């Protein structure tokens, strides 16, 4: 019996048990429901849960624990189905008028709720463990000093790859920096205008429109970088271009990816800053205006300084988004790992190298593939650190005015 049919059979037995428990509850009190502790349906669900949960757990155990895989599926079928039927009989026999079925069922449901909430923790543990394990393997094959402090990224299949994170980190930071240079001024000024100057009508139109930019999938931005912005920059800065200079040789460049990522982050910065500026108490504005300051002076000298911690938090969140962004840099940034200050050159980032190292045909024992896990872990720690700091700043800031 395949796993699918076995699962189905367990569910069927549980359903049968539910119905039998429901009937049994009626029959133990000869139809007088008032004598039962709980409603009849709780007796039914009690039987159902008693059958379902242990049987399914056993099935999952069977699939996960490797030594059990050798045991014949025939035996597995008998064991699981036998357990289900046994539990059904046991559960039905426990039904008496005094049995507190509702309490039992609610306890089980609470357990399920807790299990669901723990899944978030499990995901994090899964992320950390899966990467940690492979990273340890990687550092067994490759010196961690060279990884963190080497200066060259040059993977090859001859076995003398140089896999240092520093050039990738530089590319990542450089591109993120350009993205922030684009998105922070535009996003911040947009937020200031929307929250301080714009009437409800303008706000009602402009804010959702700007937020469309946030809902567009990153693959679209990637394509926009590769096929539109890149060629546009090339036609401006490339040889025979509009400016008559020859600074750019290919469409993929730091500036290409940075500009497009900046566009993507505009709504992110603006909606976060908007919330934060709105949280500044009106009394502070009124005080400043009452002393004769103009609106812009109030904003510059009162509102913004008051909102500054929150805005810095928002910028940090945007920076963490930029560092972890993948599709735009995969399509728009190029593949050259180097230290350079020229924004018109192709450069590569941590995320692009993760993709390229893991999508090749490499086997999972070579340092060239395993390095992706070390890169992933670094990226995870980096973004997590930024997020924790940013969320902390934003939270303390909020409390300040509550």
């Amino acid at each position, binding site marked *: 019996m395949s796993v699918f049919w076995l699962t189905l059979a367990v569910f069927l037995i549980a359903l049968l048990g539910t119905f039998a428990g429901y009937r049994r509850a009626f029959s133990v009190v000869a139809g007088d429901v008032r004598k039962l502790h709980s409603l009849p349906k709780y007796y039914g669900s009690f039987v159902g849960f008693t059958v379902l949960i242990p049987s399914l757990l056993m099935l999952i155990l069977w699939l996960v624990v490797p030594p059990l895989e050798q045991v014949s599926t025939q035996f597995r079928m008998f064991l699981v189905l036998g357990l289900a039927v046994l539990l059904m009989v046991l559960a039905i026999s426990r039904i008496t008028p005094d049995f507190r079925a509702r309490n039992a069922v609610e306890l089980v449901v609470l357990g399920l709720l807790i299990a669901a909430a723990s899944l978030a923790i499990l995901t994090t543990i899964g992320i950390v463990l899966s990467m940690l394990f492979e990273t340890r393997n990687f550092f067994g094959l490759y010196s961690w000093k060279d990884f963190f402090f080497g200066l060259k990224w040059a993977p090859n299949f001859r076995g003398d790859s140089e896999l240092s994170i520093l050039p990738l980190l530089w590319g990542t930071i450089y591109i993120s920096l350009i993205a922030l240079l684009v998105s922070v001024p535009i*996003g911040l000024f947009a937020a200031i205008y929307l929250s301080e100057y714009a009437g409800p009508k303008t706000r009602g139109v402009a804010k959702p429109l700007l937020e469309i930019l946030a809902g567009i999938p990153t693959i679209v931005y990637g394509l926009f970088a590769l096929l539109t912005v890149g060629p546009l920059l090339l036609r401006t800065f490339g040889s025979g271009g509009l400016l008559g200079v020859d600074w750019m040789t290919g469409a993929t460049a730091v500036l290409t990816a940075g500009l497009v990522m900046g566009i993507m982050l505009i709504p992110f910065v603006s909606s976060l800053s908007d919330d934060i500026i709105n949280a500044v108490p009106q009394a502070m504005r009124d005080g400043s205006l009452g002393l004769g300051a103009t609106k812009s002076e109030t904003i510059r000298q009162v509102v913004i300084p008051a909102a500054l911690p929150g805005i810095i938090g928002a910028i940090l969140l945007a920076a963490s988004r930029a560092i972890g962004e993948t599709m735009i840099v995969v399509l728009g940034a190029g593949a050259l790992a180097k230290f350079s200050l020229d924004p018109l050159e192709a450069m590569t980032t941590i995320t692009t190298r993760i993709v390229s190292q893991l999508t090749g045909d490499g086997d999972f024992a070579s340092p060239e593939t395993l390095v992706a896990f070390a890169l992933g872990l670094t990226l995870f720690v980096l973004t997590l650190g930024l997020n924790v700091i940013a969320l902390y700043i934003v939270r303390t800031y909020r409390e300040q005015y509550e």
Partner: protein
Amino acid sequence: MSNTLNNSLLTLDARTKKRNAAETRFRVYGIAAIGAGLAMLILLLLTIFGNGLGAFQQTFVTLNVPLLEEKLDKNSTRNLEKIKKVSTFGYAPLLKQAMEDTLAENGIETDLKSKKQAALLSKSAAAQLRNYVLANPDMIGATVEFTFLANARVDGYLKDRVTRESIADDKNINAAQLDLVDALLAAEVIEQRFNLSFITGADASDQRPEAAGMGVSMLGSFFMMLVVLALALPIGVAASIYLEEFAPKNWITDIIEVNISNLAAVPSIVFGILGLAVFINSMHLPQSAPLVGGLVLTLMTLPTIIISTRASLKSVPPSIRDAALGVGASKMQSVFHHVLPLAAPGILTGTIIGLAQALGETAPLLLIGMIGFIASNAPDSVASGFLDPNSAMPAQIYEWAKRADPAFYERAWGGIIILLVFLITMNTIAVILRRRFERRW
């Protein structure tokens, strides 16, 4: 000082003028920033639609093809096994013949060899012909009218992507062939039509951009979304109910809460690494399968769904809970019978937005092998829909963006239009749900 005192209140002094000018400047910066953002949006949409709408139009060639008996069924047995032995290669002469006939019929003269003439057709034309003959062996000997896809270069010529200058070093087409296209266009043998197979069809190999479609990858996305919906909604709602209604305030709950808000900001590619390490390398689930993609996207969307579900649970006033408890409901009953139904519209809205986010996500799919795979066959059963390798819409777009032939770029933009239509529909439904059912307490 005396200077300012002497001035009338009705005329502005230099300092006030300066301050007012600064005020105006500041305002203009704000408007400029919003204008820049909106201009980017417009530019992006114009680029998408300008480049992508072409994918929905395709060039077709209508030919009368003589299904010559001596080529297809030499012994006139109509034995299907024998007919199957003729490969697509054997059908090429028929296409050449059909092309020559058509030219003669329309009085078009050309110096091109018949092979070059037939090269105007898509490379899939022979296969299309063969499939037809295998399905209708009785038609051998007759002359049948076919509508073939034109070659991507011809299609590009009609869409102004290919010009006589741009094909100077192109091996696939030359200027004489374009002259022939012009003549055939005038004779209405070649025409542009709406291309349904772009929406419903399968991906095609590198050589045939004209035949590539989104249909199969849409199915892949559909099955992934089923997995996400079936897992993320119940788990997300259960987790939110626990955290919002039952969890005691202690450090464990705090950790879970901080954890969820941080998970929401973890780069999506990290979830891809998790999926690769756990689902594929440890659990040996099939690579490229929508099931695995769905599991990864579930983990990714869970925080989004939990955050929005908690917000809508929080918005149900405590009096509802107190009233239920007051008439003897248990805590669990008050939540499931009263709070949850009232929070349902908000939960649904959050779920739809989470699904939309998952639908457009690409990076984790790259790592679990949903690219580099040519989704040429639709899954033939529900189980294979979940378990057989497939692509997904954003992965398919990425795949096309990477190919060398610019004809695929048009496909990629067209694919984006389809993806955006889905996203806009989902978000509109979410907005309508919110407007229609939201209750302010």
